[in-house]
């Protein structure tokens, strides 16, 4: 299969690019010129692979769920990204980027975080690789996600509250970019999803693509074919989905399904269904779909899952959707919670609320008995216990 790459300017079709203030130009241009040479060098690949294996715990299992398969009358596999160190796929990317930052001679790492998963993964990686780490987090999210804030602090990171705007992920990202503008030379910005100016969407996609690479190998071993019928993943910015889809793009046999968070319903006004409702525009340095007013102001999204409430979508996903290479679905808060409880009870796995959106989509499909379906279980649900127990006690 040929690799899935943007063009030299970082465009996937008409999406992507690098819409950044001049103060960041040099810094980003430097990264654009050097990232491929560095991350594709043998010594980098060896160092990354070793850490992913011995520190993160890769490869993560591809688990054939007998119980889900019975229920949906198809072959259902779960890609267990929840078993990675720190509990989600996010660390695949942070290890890659922090290793890159070291090779670029950077002394200091900054990151944004919503629910705290990317922040924890970045803080963890910085502890391991001995770099100073500052994480920007919306003041509102700091209130909602206390345990992850404590984890980041214990790991030695400085957590800075973003007090601007709606005080959530979008604003944490704005603050991280402002900090970067103020200190472009010594600071490396580790973006947590396939968003931001070129080369971030491509770089993060490449670091996460190990997910689909492993799926292919593991499925071949278990089913005698490397081509599933469906791969399902949730999308906020879209990094776990891009990782799970990467090696199946252009595979005619495999239908890729990106599941957005509908929140309280796509037309409820409280939703994060960015692709369904978005219009073309610019967010955080990239041209893509985003939810916005007719005046071009970015609308704050809503989802019960803090990891999916991003008002934009990675530019590669925008392109794949326009070209029909991915199908986009949406799942409400309620449907996601039900799916999380179902998996917990029948397989003994508590999924993250984000991943529960992908699982819930199984209910919306018309599956045939021999269909092979991969659900990317992007993270574990420990961080969501307060939400789950509220629901549980209410039932």
């Amino acid at each position, binding site marked *: 299969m040929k690799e899935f790459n943007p063009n030299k300017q970082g465009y996937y079709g008409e999406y992507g690019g690098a819409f*950044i*203030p001049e103060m960041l130009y*040099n810094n980003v241009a430097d990264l654009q010129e050097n990232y491929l040479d560095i991350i594709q060098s043998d010594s980098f690949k060896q160092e990354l692979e070793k850490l992913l294996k011995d520190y993160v715990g890769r490869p993560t299992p591809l688990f054939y769920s007998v119980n889900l398969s019975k229920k949906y009358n198809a072959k259902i596999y779960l890609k267990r990204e929840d078993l990675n160190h720190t509990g989600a796929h996010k660390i695949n990317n942070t290890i890659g980027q922090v290793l890159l930052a070291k090779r670029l001679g950077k002394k200091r790492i900054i990151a944004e975080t919503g629910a705290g998963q990317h922040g924890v993964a970045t803080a963890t990686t910085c502890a391991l690789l001995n770099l100073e780490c500052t994480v920007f987090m919306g003041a509102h999210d700091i209130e909602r996600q206390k345990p992850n804030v404590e984890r980041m602090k214990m790991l030695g990171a400085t957590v800075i509250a973003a007090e*601007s705007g709606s005080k959530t992920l979008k604003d944490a990202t704005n603050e991280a970019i402002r900090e970067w503008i*103020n200190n*472009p*030379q010594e600071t490396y910005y580790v973006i947590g999803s396939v968003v931001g100016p070129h080369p971030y969407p491509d770089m993060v996609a490449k670091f996460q693509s190990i997910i689909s690479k492993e799926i292919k190998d593991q499925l071949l071993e278990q089913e005698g074919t490397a081509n599933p019928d469906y791969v399902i993943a949730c999308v906020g910015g879209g990094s776990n989905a891009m990782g799970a889809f990467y090696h199946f793009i252009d595979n005619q046999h495999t239908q890729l399904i990106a599941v957005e968070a509908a929140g309280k319903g796509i037309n409820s006004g409280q939703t994060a269904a960015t692709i369904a409702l978005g219009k073309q525009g610019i967010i955080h340095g990239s041209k893509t779909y*985003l939810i916005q007013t*007719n005046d071009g102001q*970015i609308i704050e999204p809503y989802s019960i899952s803090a990891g999916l409430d991003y008002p934009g979508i990675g530019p590669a996903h925008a392109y794949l959707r326009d070209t029909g290479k991915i199908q986009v679905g949406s799942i409400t808060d309620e449907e996601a919670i039900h799916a999380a409880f179902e998996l917990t009870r029948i397989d003994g796995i508590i999924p993250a609320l984000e991943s529960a959106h992908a699982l819930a989509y199984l209910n919306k499909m018309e599956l045939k008995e021999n269909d092979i379906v991969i659900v990317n279980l992007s993270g574990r649900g420990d961080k969501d216990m307060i939400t789950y127990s509220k629901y549980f006690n209410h039932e």
Partner: protein
Amino acid sequence: MNNRINTLFETKKSNILSIYFTAGYPALEDTMTILKNLDTAGVDLVEIGIPFSDPLADGPVIQNSSEQALRNGMTVAKLFDQLENIRQTVHIPIILMGYLNPVMRYGIEAFIAKCSEIGIDGIILPDLPMDYYLSHFKAPCERYNVKNIMLISNDTSIKRVREIDEQTNGFIYLVSSNGTTGSNKSLETQQDYYKHIQGLELKNPILIGFGVRDKQTYELTNQYSSGAIIGTAFMKHINEQGIDVSSIQSFINSIR
């Protein structure tokens, strides 16, 4: 083709003072009052900020004014309405400063055409990169004689400064030190960089902005440029002293 911006720089080679303020702030209908009072107070050039939900290049003071302006109901269309008859009363050059997304939503060509129609002379969009300017903005800007002003910073390579000088025609906005608007970085340490840019003998005049805040920083930057742009310090002043003509005059008098 010349417009008011070119004429200003042809007739005045130094000590040009440009003031930035956010449209629709403190109250929705204050835009025209502030603009007229700045004109009365004798500023040479005005930059009107179009509020945006996610102003990446701005510090807290301008962010807060943008948020308030949006709460007041400010939009691009509303701003054009407010400025509709501006050229009957105000004759100094006027620039709109904002971010790319609201301009794209309005329609790039429609936006530039509207600027031209009501007598806006230029635009500054900090997140508009050079390649996108060339492919999407340059032709309509030239057709409608609206100047697109590009930023340079001390990280910008000389090659790129020369390219910006070649591709634009108005002035070049030199960012005083790497940072968002209103940062209090010392400008003294940047003098070598200002001198260096001055020595390039560019065809476009230079104005220095971001962090110019008082008489001292204004005079310092003026040694190396045609003048300076003050935004955050002015916004702070109107927050404390109000927008009437005496308040605005006293601010301008404190600068030059």
